[in-house]
């Protein structure tokens, strides 16, 4: 099979026009839903929790929509296409993580909280300091994640629309198109959140999850059909075309790389473990995932929605396995890196190759490419909307209503502040993303997971299961875990001192790992314990209430 190159020359205009048309259709449909949802949004419960009326399947799809980011879709498919097995290894952490959410968090959170993560953390503690801390960590996690997604969107647009450095698109060169994309994505996410609240945002997630699953399924079936459902032959071809031979199917090309230097090998392997732990423990601490559990009527339906989510997300990662190996086999490592060194265009390139072979030549290739590119934009848009909603909810409900107004704010006031916060957070995210667009910020996704695992998860688990846990413990674990993760990354090779760093020309790094989790997560748990035992505060009476409510659903909102 000949290698296919992304249609920079061939059918650019067909594909580009179709991508933009499809994307505009998605935007139009989701905006219509959002406006419809805004008419149904009257109370704070509607705005923050979508009226708590979603079914298990709907919320399962929406969880998938919130979770399967462009980093998952394009990123993991690209990692598998370039590094084979190691990309697959990466995706597994994202799935196994859902067991933490299922077994330890979802139902209890649904039973005892109301709108935000802090509702559970502050349940039996002094409201103001705990909510301030929870709000701070929510914003940090969300902003990191937002910047990574939005900068990614900017970088993708020129690749997906085929804007090369010497050509222009609608009179914009590649750099202008990047900035325009960041602003467009940011503006749309602000509109979804402000107008549609949780109801509108949830439907956007559902539509996106449906599109993403359908697109990935079609491509997976085409890849498998090409190999007559012989997995071994697909793997063999992928290994041969990757230019790396059998090593492509084995661990070690990307993570835990073995080199001549013993210390470099050691740190690379530690980094792999550190990343794995952060992925598994981070998911159940991500604010935009936690708020999803409030959109269903009961804890049993929250459980059901996580079961759906596990099925959907697991199936999706199995698809990406086929897509990644398919791209390696049918497009080839050389053609992929020629387009994007990080492999982010592997999935679209595969779509084009499959379209050419199975959907009637160049036009078919252009069509399938356009569909997958539009799906990728929809994916990014849905994820950033979820993040903006979660962080503005926390600002309004935790910080404004409970810290500043000490619980005296009216529902109307609270929702108004939530909308203003969405605008401000969105604007800040746009500004930071434009500033960061030329920097390598891909590490921010892993950092968001590390902060969620180091700061949020210890506080949540201690809150739910440890009678002695108190205000001081909550503050120590949140601030301790947050500080540890951020400081370690700041002094790591992803920020300075390596060719792929955010600031490659400077070097202030002394922490050898790119992923702080293996150190910062134990610090978060340890801080929570220390903070608890050094304080005399005893909240065990309120813990009786929390425990009874979390297990039985008594008094659930």
């Amino acid at each position: 099979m000949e290698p296919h190159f992304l249609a920079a020359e061939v059918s650019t205009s067909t594909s580009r026009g179709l991508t933009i048309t499809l994307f505009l259709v998605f935007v139009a449909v989701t905006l219509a839903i959002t406006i419809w949802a805004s008419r149904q949004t009257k109370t704070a419960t509607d705005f923050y929790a979508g009226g708590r009326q979603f079914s298990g399947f709907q919320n399962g799809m929406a969880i998938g929509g919130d979770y399967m980011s462009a980093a998952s879709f394009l990123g993991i498919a690209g990692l598998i296409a370039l590094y084979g097995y190691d990309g697959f290894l990466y995706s597994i952490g994202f799935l196994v993580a859902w067991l933490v959410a299922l077994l330890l968090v979802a139902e209890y959170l649904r039973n005892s909280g109301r709108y935000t993560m802090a509702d559970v953390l502050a349940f039996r503690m002094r409201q103001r300091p705990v909510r301030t801390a929870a709000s701070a960590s929510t914003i940090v996690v969300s902003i990191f994640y937002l910047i990574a997604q939005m900068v990614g969107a900017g970088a993708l647009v020129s690749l997906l629309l085929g804007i090369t450095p010497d050509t222009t698109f609608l009179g914009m060169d590649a750099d202008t198109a990047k900035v325009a994309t960041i602003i467009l994505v940011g503006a749309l996410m602000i509109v979804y959140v402000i107008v549609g609240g949780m109801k509108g945002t949830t439907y956007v997630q559902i539509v996106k999850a449906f599109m993403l699953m359908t697109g990935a399924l079609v491509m997976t079936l085409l890849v498998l059909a090409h190999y007559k459902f012989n997995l071994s032959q697909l793997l063999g071809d992928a290994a041969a075309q990757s230019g790396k031979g059998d090593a492509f199917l084995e661990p070690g090309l990307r993570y835990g790389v073995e080199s001549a230097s013993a210390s470099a090998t050691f740190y690379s392997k530690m980094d792999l473990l550190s990343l794995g732990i952060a992925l598994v423990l981070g998911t159940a601490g991500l604010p935009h995932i936690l708020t999803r559990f409030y959109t269903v009527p009961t804890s049993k339906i929250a459980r059901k929605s996580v079961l759906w989510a596990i099925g959907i997300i697991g199936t999706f990662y199995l698809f990406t396995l086929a897509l990644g190996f398919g791209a390696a086999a049918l497009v080839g490592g050389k053609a992929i890196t020629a387009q994007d060194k990080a492999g982010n265009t592997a999935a679209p390139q595969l779509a084009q190759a499959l379209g050419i072979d199975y959907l009637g030549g160049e036009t078919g290739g252009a069509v399938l490419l356009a569909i997958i590119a539009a799906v990728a934009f929809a994916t990014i848009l849905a994820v950033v909307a979820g993040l903006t909603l979660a962080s503005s909810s926390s600002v309004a409900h935790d910080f404004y209503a409970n810290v500043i107004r000490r619980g005296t704010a009216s529902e109307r006031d609270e929702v108004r502040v939530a909308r203003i916060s969405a605008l401000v957070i969105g604007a800040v995210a746009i500004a930071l993303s434009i500033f960061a667009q030329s920097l390598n910020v891909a590490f921010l996704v892993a950092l968001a997971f590390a902060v969620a695992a180091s700061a949020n998860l210890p506080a949540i688990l201690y809150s739910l299961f440890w009678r002695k846990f108190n205000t001081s413990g909550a503050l120590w674990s949140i601030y301790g875990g947050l500080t540890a993760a951020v400081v370690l990354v700041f002094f790591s090779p992803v920020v300075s001192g390596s060719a792929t760093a955010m600031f490659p020309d400077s070097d202030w790094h002394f922490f050898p790992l790119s992923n702080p989790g293996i150190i910062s997560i134990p610090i978060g748990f340890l801080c929570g314990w220390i903070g608890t035992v050094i304080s005399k505060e005893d909240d065990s009476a309120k813990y009786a209430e929390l425990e009874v409510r979390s297990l039985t659903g008594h008094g659930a909102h």
Partner: protein
Amino acid sequence: MTTEVPSSSTERYRAVQDSEEFGRLRHAARSFVFPMTVAFFLWYALYVLLSAYARGFMSAKIIGNINVALILGLLQFVTTFLIAWYYSRYAARKIDPLADKILAELNAGKGDSDGGDVKKSED
């Protein structure tokens, strides 16, 4: 809808928490979720550790080009699906009935003053 729980109810929550019935509910939930969490975490950690340190073992081909690494990776999917399914079955049989019973008692004992909780509809 739900009103703020009055402070006098603190004693009631304490009483429920200390009751034998609630003890059974807590035990039913925790005796499942804690060991299962440890189990899947160790199983995942083993998989990552093997990927990092047992390269020869992981690279052994089993059927055609399918090696141990790929099979163990796919097994992580299988175990995740199985644990999720098994938990939902276990919860429906052993946890939910106990929780529902205690919840019904709590709601019944709440009196008419605040009308109790509005029963939430299932989907």
